[in-house]
């Protein structure tokens, strides 16, 4: 998916800074202030969004250690806290790859696939070419359904009712557990 928050935020900041803010009536102090605050928020999001997952994971790790210290230094009924700590530790153990690693891995594999697809198509093996077409079209149908659903609010679909909601198309991470 190429339409990602990074580029959306960047273009919003540019539009706000270069087009919208200069056009706001300077006598409307509330509008000027809020336009400036929108730009400030967007700049903050742009810088921090790539670190959000790492920051949340880091905070959870700290909380787990802290909970461990709390449990060690106190007596009494602590079953609920122990269970919460165990849940947190389980989540942390599964939260290993960073979001950007997923994106980068997908990019590496599609780069390699590009070479592979072209090599097969340029060859003389008709059976392999037909299989490649069938496989690519099948995978693309599944992926594009999700891409189109992801972007449904943009209004490009002639009949939006035939596209399922994105929530129904994305399996939760622990679905195999």
């Amino acid at each position: 998916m190429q339409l990602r928050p990074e580029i959306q935020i960047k273009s919003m900041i540019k539009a706000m800074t270069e087009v919208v803010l200069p056009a706001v009536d300077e006598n409307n102090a509330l509008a000027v202030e809020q336009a400036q605050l929108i730009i400030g928020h967007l700049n903050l999001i742009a810088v921090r969004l790539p670190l959000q997952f790492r920051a949340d994971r880091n905070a959870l790790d700290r909380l787990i250690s802290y909970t461990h210290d709390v449990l060690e230094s106190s007596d009494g009924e602590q079953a609920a806290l122990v269970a919460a700590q165990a849940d947190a530790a389980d989540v942390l153990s599964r939260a290993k790859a960073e979001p950007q690693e997923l994106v980068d891995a997908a990019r590496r594999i599609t780069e390699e696939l590009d070479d592979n697809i072209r090599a097969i198509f340029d060859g003389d093996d008709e059976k392999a070419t037909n299989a490649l077409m069938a496989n690519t079209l099948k995978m693309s149908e599944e992926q594009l359904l999700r891409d189109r659903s992801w972007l449904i609010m943009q209004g490009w679909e002639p009949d939006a009712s035939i596209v399922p909601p994105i929530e129904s198309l994305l399996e939760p991470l622990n679905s195999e557990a």
Partner: protein
Amino acid sequence: MIAIDKDRPSEEWMAAIRKQFVTETEIDRSLTRKLERRSGPSYTPLTLEEIIVGLRRLIEAKGVVKFAVEDARWLSGGASKLQVAFTLDWDRLAVGREKTRMVLRLEPAESLHETSRLREFQVVSALQDILPIPAVYWVDTEAEYLPYAGLVYGFASGVAKPSEAQSGVSGLGTRLPLELRKKLGPQFVRDLAKLHTFDFSQANLTAFDQPELGTQNSDWAVAWWDRVWEEDSGEQVPLMSLTSAWLRKNAPSVDHLSIVHGDYRVGNFLFDEQSATITSWLDWELTRIGDRHQDLAWSTSRAFGSFAEDGTTFLVSGLIPEQEFFEAYEKASGLSVDMKSLRYYQIFNAYSMAVMTLATSYRVARNGKSHQDILLTWLLGVGYMLLDDIRQLLAKEI
């Protein structure tokens, strides 16, 4: 895998790209210029005053003396170029003192289509007596005088859609009333037939390479958009790789070379509302010498059409039922419509549009190179619907 920094292209990479993708000479020049400037500054907003200064320099350089640029104002519309309307008070050759309404079309630092103002200037000049088309005056191909490369047209009167009609970006989704369709539809076909049968052999089209009959024209066309994909995309998409390979392997042979508009559809002509007469054909930046089926497939794209009042009859560009369109075109042009070539160019057109939206929109906005990055970012989203169109079209070819 060698990491390529497409935001700061190296000389070696540019040379490799130019060697790998064989395109027309002027297309190569335009795309290479884009890459050479990519690592330079992003687009900075221009004031009308800055543009007028450059415009005056251009007009002076073309030998015009004692002139005044008046009533300059921004024009809206389009997803690609900057446009300024103005009136020139000047001594026009063979006419005398005159106030002429004109339009300056200017490129931003990078745009949705990286094209050649020289090609646009030449083809519009060549078609002056053939089609309703704006006059064209001067071109600044290398931004010697203007802030960016630009072209001065005569102002074309008319509307792109009825005053009360609603439509989306760039005139897409326009719905026209039946009475208007009946009058505009035949003109739409007539002009396309005139364009495709125009004998360009004597025209000054030095910025166009003329392909041989056969597949050379489609080879160049596919290489054009393959190259843009390679230069601009942020990630590979298996369906795009497959489509490119399929297009290269299945190119149809052309039996008659035509001037191909490249964006022939509703929204790209102006008409007089009272007389329902087409007054001007616009947007010649994607024009090339090639296969008429490219225009036929573009015009008949579902993206540019609409359905008649019965909800089932598809209207080509919102104007004329599809079968009627093909029959009228064959009759007016004397050229046949080959369904296999048409299907090929449906896939080619969807591919080129997907390149523009998924790759170029992304790269331009990423580097802040245009005056409307926010619009290009929005347009990125339509790429996935285009990919699904490609998928469905290719599925019929198995």
